[in-house]
């Protein structure tokens, strides 16, 4: 199982804040951020837009992550747009 979180505009666009994926959804033995993005993008055009956007940020276990970052069972992954706090 991994947990995938969406924040702000992406949460609204996709209509979900949190999904859980199991080994039945995606191969968790050799998963990366890129593989997770590719898998989620298959859910439809909106998902594809959000995950393919050049400025989409990703965190794995609350640390900023890149496409190559590995994802393991139990990880928390988040996708979000550029931040606007402060």
């Amino acid at each position, binding site marked *: 199982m991994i947990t995938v*979180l969406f*924040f*702000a*505009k992406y949460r609204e666009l996709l209509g979900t804040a949190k999904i859980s994926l199991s080994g039945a959804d995606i191969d968790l033995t050799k998963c990366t951020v890129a593989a997770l993005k590719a898998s989620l993008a298959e859910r439809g055009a909106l998902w594809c837009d959000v995950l393919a956007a050049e*400025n989409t*940020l990703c*965190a794995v276990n*609350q*640390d*900023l992550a890149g496409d190559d970052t590995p994802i393991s069972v139990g990880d928390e992954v*988040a996708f*979000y*747009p*550029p*931040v*606007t*706090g*402060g």
Partner: protein
Amino acid sequence: MSVIVRVGEADFDVGAECRALASHSRQSGAIVQFVGLMRDSNQGDDVLTMELEHYPGMTERCITEIVNRAQQRWPLFAVTVIHRVGVLQPQDQIVFVGVSAAHRQDAFQSCEFIMDYLKTEAPFWKKECTLNGEQRWVDARQTDQQARKRWQD
């Protein structure tokens, strides 16, 4: 070195935060404080309210990491970072960054460094509700990216 990071709905008291920053060392000669306020208009539209969303847990981690980097670059006695979330009104206080150091150059630079990284790395998002009823997510500003890049040269 004292580090305080607070993220939540509660407002903050700038005077009390200043006294706390000063109290950590009798060698503290310079305190620099930044207070970010909600403006009542943005991109030409009147803004009625703003809602601040964040990524609980990661925000605190991220800000603490930024403060650690500042500590490594400048000799600091104390740093306090407070960021509000939830619904805010125009002129409400949003963010506080306060730094205490022996000398003012260190205090000014580290305070600005922390703000520049907070603006571009800490997972907060603002949604505005304008006078005409529109709800819109605030876009990230290119100038904030440029401000942060200065510190990497």
